[in-house]
């Protein structure tokens, strides 16, 4: 009996000493943004190095601003793409078709024209816009961060990692389950600044991406021009929306759809969601009204539900 109790006591004491899950955390500047990376698990250090290497690699390949990138070479008609790179472009084109062109991966000329690559902003004429649209050069700016999050998840799966939160400049990629089994709580930034506006609950591995008119813009002669360009007009999308957040298992799809739904506007975006089954969305109007699709699991604010 005594021995049994002794053993029990030892076990209880040791239980208290069980190591807390190891957290590896780092903030890095990459892919023209700030990344806040948190990885839990025995392979945390290794995983951190792996994903940092991945992001720097993806930057070297897909940077639109860097003349030495693989993408820039592709736009000059030079170089060869790996099978993986070709698959990424093919998926982007597929999503462009799916969104009826609301997302266009070949807007490089237009984005440059407006100055969103160099930060030397310019309001172009219609002729200049038409010419830029005809160039059909690749620019994956609206897709590459979501793609990066998804690629990172594939790397994490090969390592001893319990869970992770990779925040790539406001593109949130979750991986695995929280230790207590509760859903991840991901805030949605208020387009007007300040703290988060509401919260979406997300289980397991998913991507939560917001596209907003406040993220990048410039003002000229009292008019505000934001960075989400409508491929149909060649001008900043004037859809009455301030931001669109998409929750999706697939990071690339989440990133692309957040842009595409922003361009579509509320009505068209709602209809697009009804015809899909792979994502949920939260749409914030310029007037401040919030709309969320039925399954978005939004809380912390008042909103209208978009039903099937």
């Amino acid at each position, binding site marked *: *009996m*005594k021995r049994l*109790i002794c053993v*029990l*006591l030892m076990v*209880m004491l040791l239980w*208290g000493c069980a190591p807390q899950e190891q957290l590896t955390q780092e*903030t890095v*500047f990459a892919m*023209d*943004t*700030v990344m*806040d990376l948190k990885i839990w698990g025995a392979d945390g250090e290794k995983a951190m190095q792996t994903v940092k290497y991945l992001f720097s690699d993806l930057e070297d390949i897909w940077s639109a601003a860097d003349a030495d990138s693989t993408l820039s070479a592709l736009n000059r008609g030079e170089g060869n793409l790996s099978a993986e790179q070709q698959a990424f472009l093919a998926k982007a084109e597929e999503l462009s078709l799916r969104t009826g062109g609301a997302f266009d991966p070949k807007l490089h000329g237009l984005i440059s024209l407006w100055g969103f690559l160099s*930060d030397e902003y310019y309001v172009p004429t219609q002729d200049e816009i038409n010419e830029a649209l005809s160039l059909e050069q690749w620019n994956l700016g609206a897709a590459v961060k979501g793609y990066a999050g998804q690629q990172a998840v594939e790397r994490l799966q090969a390592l001893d990692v319990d869970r992770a*939160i990779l*925040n790539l*400049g*406001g*593109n*949130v990629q*979750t991986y695995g389950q*929280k230790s207590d089994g509760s859903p*991840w*709580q*991901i*805030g*949605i*930034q*208020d387009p*007007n*600044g*300040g*703290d*988060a506006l509401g*919260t979406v609950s997300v289980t397991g591995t998913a991507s*939560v*991406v*917001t596209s*907003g008119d*406040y*993220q*990048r813009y410039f003002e000229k002669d009292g008019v505000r021009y934001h960075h989400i360009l409508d491929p149909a007009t060649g001008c900043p999308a004037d859809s009455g929306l301030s*931001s669109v*957040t998409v929750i999706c298992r697939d990071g690339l799809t989440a990133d692309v759809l957040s842009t595409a739904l922003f361009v579509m506007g509320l009505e068209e975006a709602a209809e697009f969601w009804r015809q899909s089954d792979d994502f949920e969305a939260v749409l914030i109007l310029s007037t401040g009204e919030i709309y969320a699709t039925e399954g978005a699991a939004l809380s912390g604010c008042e909103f209208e539900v978009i039903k099937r």
Partner: protein
Amino acid sequence: MKTRTWVILLGLLLAVCLGLSLWLLAPGEDAAMAEVWSEGELLYTLDLHVDQTKTVVSGNGTNVITVENGKIAVTEADCPDGYCMDRGFCSSGAQIVCLPNRLVIKFIGQQPLDGVAG
């Protein structure tokens, strides 16, 4: 020692453990602290209950940080875009970032959110 003594000891230990874990796991007050990072280095850990102003000069530029009424904001900046100031005063959520000046303000302590998309 007698078995009963052990049982009592065991019971006491259990009670202490239970008490401790309840205390440790209880949701704490919002810590209301923020860290100011410049070019990857931690410069300040600021208590948001104390109104104050800090000027951060980096190799890339200058930002003025103001703490007021439990909130923090970048109130002056020489960066070309000014997005860091757009965020305004806040006390939680996404970190405040000035990308051109490599400035990051992070909220620390008990955070209700696992991340913020935006």
